[in-house]
């Protein structure tokens, strides 16, 4: 857990209100990997996660590059969140279409599970070592309902404050607190061994 400790020291013990990078290039460079992990947590697929991050970067640069740097963070997470939701909807439609065309049932007539793209990326479990693995947490986070997952990732993992999380999620600050509280309750139950 040396790596985790190092990150903990560097990221979590840093004073609040870290300076936002002055240029969009530096800002995106600081966000791209975390954005990828966030998209991967939601979508469970590397290619879709890369598409979502690239699209979010493009939209941020195209439409919001003139905005003050302090606004980039919630704007970027908001764009990425909407892109993720859009991809999830497309998957749902695809599953429905496959079902209509008869592809949703096996030879015995039993319904097949909904279509999900194969996860071709290297699993986090392969990369991380430690008592509490990222894979365990990712599995528990993936089980959360959509809005609870968003609140947990943005508020806890990304460290956005309540107001920024509300902007990114497009909801009120009260809703953020409610979603986060439920998410934490769910995760505490499923990650009991962390205690």
């Amino acid at each position: 857990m040396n790596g985790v400790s190092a990150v903990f020291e560097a990221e979590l013990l840093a004073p609040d209100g870290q300076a936002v990078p002055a240029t969009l290039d530096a800002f995106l460079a600081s966000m791209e990997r975390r954005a990828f992990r966030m998209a991967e947590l939601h979508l469970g697929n590397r290619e879709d996660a890369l598409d979502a991050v690239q699209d979010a970067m493009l939209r941020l640069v195209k439409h919001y590059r003139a905005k003050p740097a302090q606004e980039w963070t919630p704007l970027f997470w908001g764009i990425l969140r909407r892109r993720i939701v859009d991809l999830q909807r497309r998957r749902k439609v695809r599953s429905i279409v496959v079902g209509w065309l008869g592809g949703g049932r096996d030879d015995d007539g039993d319904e097949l599970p909904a279509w999900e793209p194969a996860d071709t990326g290297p699993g986090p479990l392969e990369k991380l070592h430690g008592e509490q693995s990222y894979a365990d947490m990712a599995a528990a986070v993936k089980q959360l309902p959509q809005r609870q997952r968003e609140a947990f990732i943005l508020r806890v993992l990304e460290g956005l404050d309540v107001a920024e999380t509300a902007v990114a999620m497009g909801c009120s600050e009260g809703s953020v607190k409610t979603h986060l509280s439920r998410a934490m309750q769910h995760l505490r139950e499923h990650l009991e061994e962390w205690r």
Partner: protein
Amino acid sequence: MNSSDKQFEQRARALYQEAAQSVDPVTAGRLRAARRTALEAASAHASPHHRARVLVPVGALAAIALAALVIWQRAPQPQPEHNQQASVASEQQDSEYLPPEAEKTDPGLYQNLDFYSWLAANDSSQTKR
């Protein structure tokens, strides 16, 4: 929030941060490429060349439209024939009621104005009979 919750959050966040740092090289390369693509696309969109590509055709079209409007307004407007006839008749009718111009009229007319008045009065009285 109790200390246990705080510890839970810190641990989750640390794992997330490390997972972000340990993205495989291929994915990291693709993310860098995606960033460059986004920045280049935006700069190309805002570059003077891009503006020129949009503004030149628009300006040319506007100039052509303006020239066409000016030429159309300067061209003689053809008037309908019946309008011309009506205007000629109207001019003739007006001239009957207007007094004759002093420069073009025979000076004798003004010298014998009383006679001509009497003649006109007599002539009209005869016509009535």
